[in-house]
Structures are given as structure tokens and as C-alpha cells.
């Protein structure tokens, strides 16, 4: 049977996500963020989740909505506090959310490593700082580095501009951000896409994320160019 990763609705896209999962969520601020997938995950009901994302949500919808619903046990991110991160701050104050603060480049590299089969790596980032405290230090050629472990996830929720039935993806400008690396680092990668295109319409040189990394694609058009969503 021909490969077809396109699913018809958000419920099918979320099928099988278990309690206790580690979930990667793409996006940088409001751009390239899989908002409808996040809402669908809230609807689906999985709980006790560990979320990996650059930000910890703003307002009360999207990622903040998932957190407000009490589904998130822990968040791993680089920029938890920003204008409007009210739900994060409330949960933190109430002691109901664990935070692991990670430098942004280390966050990306920990997922890149997972996707490439590398269990851990050394980086100079955060050596000698609060974030680096307690981590293994090793010196190479006179410079000190700390050991950071890969983040391998159960699920990635990502957003693309164009996708075909093989799951080949192409992103648009700043919508790319964490999406390609997250696609590689999860057992189940679910993509919401603005446009579904015919197989072959994305030329081999235009595919940013090859379909091998993608399991499910759901078509969620919301404008061209899209409005940045909150």
C-alpha cells in the first residue's frame, strides 16, 4: 500500500499518546508553533507530561492552556519567563511545575544529539555558571566543558509550511526554528502543516525535513502569509 502519513483529523493525529510522555513542542514565540496540535493534546487528555519547548507558554491558550489543565509535570526550556507567561508563574509559585532551565543552544543540541544517536556531549556553554553547577567537567586543549545528555522524546509536535504524503516538510522563514531538530528526536513526530502538496511538488533540494523523521501529518491551514498566533 502506498505510503500516506496524512491523517484526517486532530484526534487521529493524537492517537496513542500516553501519560508520562516527554513531548517536544516546536515554535519560537508565536511563529512556527503547532497551536492546534497542542490544543488537541489537551483535548486528548494525556497527563503527567514533560514538555520540552523554548518558552513556557503565554496567555492562557496553547501551551499555557495545556499547563493550566494540570497536564504538565515538568518543563524543560530556555526562556520560561516572558511577557504574559502567567500560567507558568502561577504553577511555579504553587510548586506544581518542575523546571529544568537549559541554555538555548544546549537545548537544540541535546535534541540534535538524540536524533543522531549521540547519548551525551561536552559543551563550553554554561561552564562556570549556575546552570553548569554539578555537571561533569572535562578539559580539552586547555578549555573546560560540561557534559550534557541528549533529550530523546516520545512525541514531537511540530509545524511546517508545506508537507506531502510521505511526510517531507518545508518550513517558511522564522517558522523553521526548533521544528527540524525536534522532528529527529522523537519516536512519534506529528506535524501540522499550512499546505499539503502533491508528492514531487517539493523538489529534492527543497525538502528541509525528509519524511523518514515524520509519522503523521495533519492539514491545518490558517492564512497565507499566516497571522502570528498568540
Amino acid at each position, binding site marked *: 500500500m502506498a505510503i500516506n502519513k496524512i491523517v484526517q483529523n486532530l484526534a487521529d493525529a493524537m492517537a496513542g499518546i500516553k501519560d508520562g510522555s516527554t513531548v517536544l513542542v516546536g515554535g519560537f514565540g508565536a511563529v512556527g508553533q503547532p497551536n492546534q496540535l497542542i490544543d488537541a493534546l489537551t483535548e486528548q487528555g494525556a497527563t503527567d507530561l514533560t514538555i520540552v519547548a523554548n518558552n513556557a507558554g503565554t496567555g492562557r491558550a496553547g501551551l499555557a492552556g495545556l499547563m493550566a489543565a494540570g497536564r504538565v509535570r515538568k518543563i524543560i526550556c530556555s526562556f520560561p519567563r516572558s511577557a504574559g507567561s502567567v500560567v507558568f508563574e502561577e504553577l511555579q509559585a504553587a510548586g506544581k511545575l518542575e523546571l529544568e532551565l537549559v541554555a538555548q543552544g544546549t537545548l537544540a*543540541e541535546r535534541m*540534535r544529539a538524540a536524533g543522531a544517536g549521540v547519548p551525551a556531549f561536552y559543551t563550553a556553554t554554561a561552564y562556570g555558571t549556575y546552570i553548569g553547577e554539578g555537571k561533569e567537567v572535562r578539559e580539552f586543549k586547555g578549555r573546560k566543558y560540561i557534559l550534557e545528555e541528549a533529550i530523546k522524546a516520545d512525541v514531537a509536535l511540530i509545524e511546517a509550511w508545506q508537507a506531502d504524503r510521505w511526510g517531507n516538510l518545508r518550513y517558511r522563514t522564522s517558522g523553521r526554528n526548533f521544528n527540524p531538530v525536534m522532528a529527529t528526536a522523537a519516536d512519534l513526530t506529528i506535524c501540522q502543516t499550512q499546505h499539503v502538496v502533491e508528492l514531487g511538488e517539493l523538489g529534492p533540494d527543497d525538502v528541509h525535513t525528509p519524511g523518514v523523521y515524520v509519522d503523521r501529518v495533519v492539514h491545518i491551514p490558517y492564512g497565507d502569509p499566516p497571522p502570528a498566533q498568540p
Partner: protein
Amino acid sequence: MSVASTATAAKPAPEANNVKGWSRQQMAQRLADDIPEGWYVNLGIGIPLLVGNAIPDDREVVLQSENGILGMGPLQTKDNLDTWIVNAGKQNVTLKTGASIVSHSDSFAMIRGGHLDLCVLGSFEVAQNGDFANWTTSLKSVPAVGGAMDLAVGAKRIWLIMEHTSKDGKPRLLEQCTMPLTAPSVVKRVYTNLAVVDISERGFELVEMNPEITFEALQARTGGKLHRPS
């Protein structure tokens, strides 16, 4: 009696209180004048962003934004609004002719791999051994780190642009940082409203002084020994 040991405790001389020195715009221009054509440069949020506007249009300096833009242009206007293009501060920016977009993992590989000639950052404090503290004033509340620690160790040069003293007149160029470090021993040069200071093995090296201030008054506002050019 060493100048340095008294400087930390000393209140600024009365005449020094009236010296405002260079404006932020002038500081940014002074720094921009030192960036040669052909450099790849990341500008932090805040005063560093003014440096971008101070680089003349006919000098080709390629600006990087850590969310994956190489070749960033000025902020968008209503005429070219595309909310899908954002910089690291989540402002809508333009792309210059010749620009490229990469993912977060590629962008931070570029940063951490030493491919950027310069990163300009704001800071709360800098020490005479090149340590600096710019990500949080305290660990009591949950801080956000973003890409600061990656940029700090990855770029070939770190230049800071900052006010010479705090609002209540306390030195920000210090023998030792008091706030949580962003990175140890990385700062090469500091541009302030009162001076341009290099950091060498022996500490703060005065490069240029604002003409409104005397050396003694500048030293009184600096929490570490200032070495005059020999």
C-alpha cells in the same frame, strides 16, 4: 594605597555625578565604527540592537539572529509586514538581499562553533578578568537564559555595551562580579557612556575616555584599577 581598593568603596566625586557622557546612540555609533566590513555579528537585545542601525548601509556587515537568520535587516514597517519573520527578540524584522535561514540547531552550531566574528551584548556587570553577568540579577526568582550563555562562549569576540554605573551611581565594571555569571573570562572590550575599555591579562585597559570626565573621576566610578594607555 592602590586605586582599585578604594575605588570599590568610594562614592563618585560630586563633579562626576553631573557627567552623563555619551548617549546610547553615540555609544552604539562608537562601537559600530569599530566593526569592519565582512564581519558576521550577533547583536543582543537592548542597547546592542542600536548598533545595527549605526552601521552605514554601504558597509557589508552580516547580522545574525540566533533564531536562525543570517543577513537580518532593519525592523519591518507597515509596508513590508510579514509576521512570520521574527528576530530573537520576537520583533518583526526584514531580511537583506543575500540572507539565509537555518534551524535553531544549525544557528547555535554556527554560534557555538566559533563562526561569528563578534557578539555584542548588554550587561549588568563585567569584571576585570573578563567575567560578565547579564542574564539575571538574582536566582531568587526563576530566570530566563535564552541564548546568552551560548553566544558568550561561542563568538570569536564578546564586546559589551552598557552604562558605566548603575542608576544609583555604583560601578558596573568591577574587580569581581556579584551577580550570577553568564560566562567566565570571555569579554574583550566594553563600551560605556564614559569610556571604551579593553580587558587584558592585567585587567581594565583604558582605550578612550569621554572628554567630559577626568581620569580620576572615571577611576572613581570604576570598581577595578584602570590602566592608562602606555
